[in-house]
């Protein structure tokens, strides 16, 4: 009985991280279902997808890609900052990330409202008048970007919580696994966009 380990309330950062990764896998496969539907329809209606994609503004898409990539870097840097014990810098970098995420959402808002203004939204007269492949493309466009935007919102909420936890001293130089996990989630949002962007905006 001597050779046993006494049980103190102990923190297993590795377990938290593994849990987060597995959660990320489920998110990836959630989008995976949509990508599968996209792949099948794109193979079937490649011409229509091409025509429909002309409606999308590649410039806005590119701008949003750049925004998300930069925000991914600032989150990664915020983790570096906390690891080096620079609490103030970490908070600033997270604030920048949240600001960038807001820009992303503003862009998205104008993009969507432009389409809706032209009567191009699910169930509308204009949309049901399109031929089959184009109809499917816009359906997928709204579903994928909508679900992605929802994840941006969730990511923003998580990062905001992390920001306050750094402020209140719950996340520190030697207890930062929650910030790391929040960061992982944000990178997931970025990762999905990296694939959505060429598949929706850059069809030629």
């Amino acid at each position, binding site marked *: *009985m001597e*050779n*046993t*380990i*006494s*049980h103190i309330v102990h923190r*297993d950062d*590795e*377990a938290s991280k*593994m*849990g987060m990764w*597995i*959660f990320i*896998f*489920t*998110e*990836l*496969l*959630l*989008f*995976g*279902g*949509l990508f*599968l*539907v996209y792949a*099948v*329809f794109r193979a*079937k209606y490649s011409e229509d997808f091409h025509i429909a994609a002309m409606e999308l503004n590649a410039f806005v898409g590119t701008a949003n890609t750049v925004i998300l990539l930069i925000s991914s870097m600032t989150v990664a840097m915020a983790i570096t900052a906390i690891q080096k014990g620079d609490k103030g810098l970490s908070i600033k970098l997270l604030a920048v990330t949240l600001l960038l995420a807001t820009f992303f959402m503003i862009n998205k808002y104008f993009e969507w409202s432009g389409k809706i203004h032209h009567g191009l939204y*699910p*169930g509308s007269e204009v949309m049901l008048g399109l031929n*089959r*492949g184009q*109809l*499917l493309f816009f*359906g*997928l466009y*709204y*579903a994928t970007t909508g679900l992605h935007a929802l994840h941006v919102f969730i990511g923003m909420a998580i990062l905001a919580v992390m920001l306050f936890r750094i402020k209140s001293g719950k996340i520190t130089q030697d207890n930062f696994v929650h910030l790391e996990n929040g960061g992982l989630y944000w990178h997931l949002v970025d990762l999905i966009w990296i694939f959505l962007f060429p598949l929706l905006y850059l069809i030629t």
Partner: protein
Amino acid sequence: MSGLTQEHAQPSYLDQQGKYKGLLGWIFSTDHKRIALLYLYTIVVFFLVAVVFGLLMRIELFFPGQDIMSPQTYNAMFTVHGVIMIFIIVIPGLSAVFGNFFLPILIGAKDVAFPRLNLLSWWIFLFGAILAVLSQFAGSGAPDTGWTFYVPYSAESDSNVVIALTAAFVLGFSSILTGLNFIVTIHRMRAPGMTWFRMPLFPWSLYATAWIQVLATPIVGITLLMVIAERTLHIGFFDPALGGDPILFQHLFWIYSHPAVYVMILPAMGVVTEIFPTFSQKPVFGYTAIAISSLAIAGVGYFVWGHHMFTSGMSYSARWFFSFLTFIVAVPSAIKVFNWLSTMYKGSIDLKPPLLYAISFIFLFMIGGLTGLVLGSLATNVQVHDTAFVVAHFHYIIFGGMGFGFFAGMHYWFPKMYGRMYNIKLANIAWGILFTGFNFLYFPQFVIGMQGMPRRYFDYLPQFQVGHFISSIGAFILVTGIILMIYNLIRSAHKGEVAPANPWRGSTLEWQISSPPPLENFDEIPVITGKPYQYNTDDLGNE
């Protein structure tokens, strides 16, 4: 395994402690054992509801023509029976109840990796379960699409499809969280010295199951969301009226729902794998083969979904591909059957209720598995597709496999969970009635299915009368057996004689601690020095 029998240093997990009293002490408890019992009680309640639906359907089918319900009610009955049985009982069943209770104990841990997440997944489960039952009664009529929600009908039916879809989505979320928790628990919480290949085999099967839960459930989650979007926002994916492709729905649905069959059956295999060595007092035969075959079933089982779609108009190449893989996936299951039989061979067999259930598990699972090959082969599938043959097949697998596995586990671990022993004689009688009723109920459906009786029909031609009649009689016998079994267990939980720590002379860790287990399972985390199931005759006297 170190032979430590612990003193009653800590109070049992059943005793009152913590900051909440009474019921609150249960529904807000983060103890894995209490959460397991929460799941157990929830599942039993919903099981009885679904059994009543099933029995009503059998009464309707006693004679040709309309007997006790309208066709529309019958449609709602089989839909809600399916939704409850599949999503609330058989998918979570074994892993949520016995997995939660025994996984930490079997690997020598004090709890799962994320206890609060564990409680959260029960709450989500309860919420989803209530939604599922609500869909039967609220709003515009019970859903009538069948539990498979095939589009286009599910996109057009006026009934409560959206509520049922949401319920399935919510229940899936709970399933994912349980799976996530178990994977991390097995990776991170094993006791010192417990290497992967020193783990008992029930945790192995839970590990394989957990990966399927985590990797397959999101696909059905998004699919259900897409159908919801189709119905509410008119975004076309599957409904041809909106430009969609209904066969694509079947692909996506079965990409989850076929692996889900392994979520149901793998833990049941794990349970009986614990039972055979204990009641034969012999080390399990082919430990590594059983462990690896669990992973193989999970892996290959992911890619056979198309065998549900042989008559859907899928391409010929895809059909033979899926048929071929279906035959492959039968191999690891057969390996397990041989291992169980070899474990019993020349063992000192003690025919107690858990072993009776485990042996009947093999028998019923074999019938279900072999008829599965009839369905998996392309030519015969066309003959029996969507007939009562399919119904009989999956009830043999799901009820005969998962259900009997669950009953086996219940009778095996009952003395550990409650610290009391049930009436063994009564349990044997209940088993006999259950087993007889089961075969009377489902075997005739193979026959009438072969003759062409379609599934999901509330009426039938006179030529199927005999089969349906026997089947309905069987339903009553089966329900009698279930009631007797549950009565025995409930009564014994309160009044049964006090059980010793190790009534079956088992060798795995759960039998080395007191019954019922103390709150933190182990006073001190055990150190593991060898493989599990090390039985030899002079090592048995420690109860």
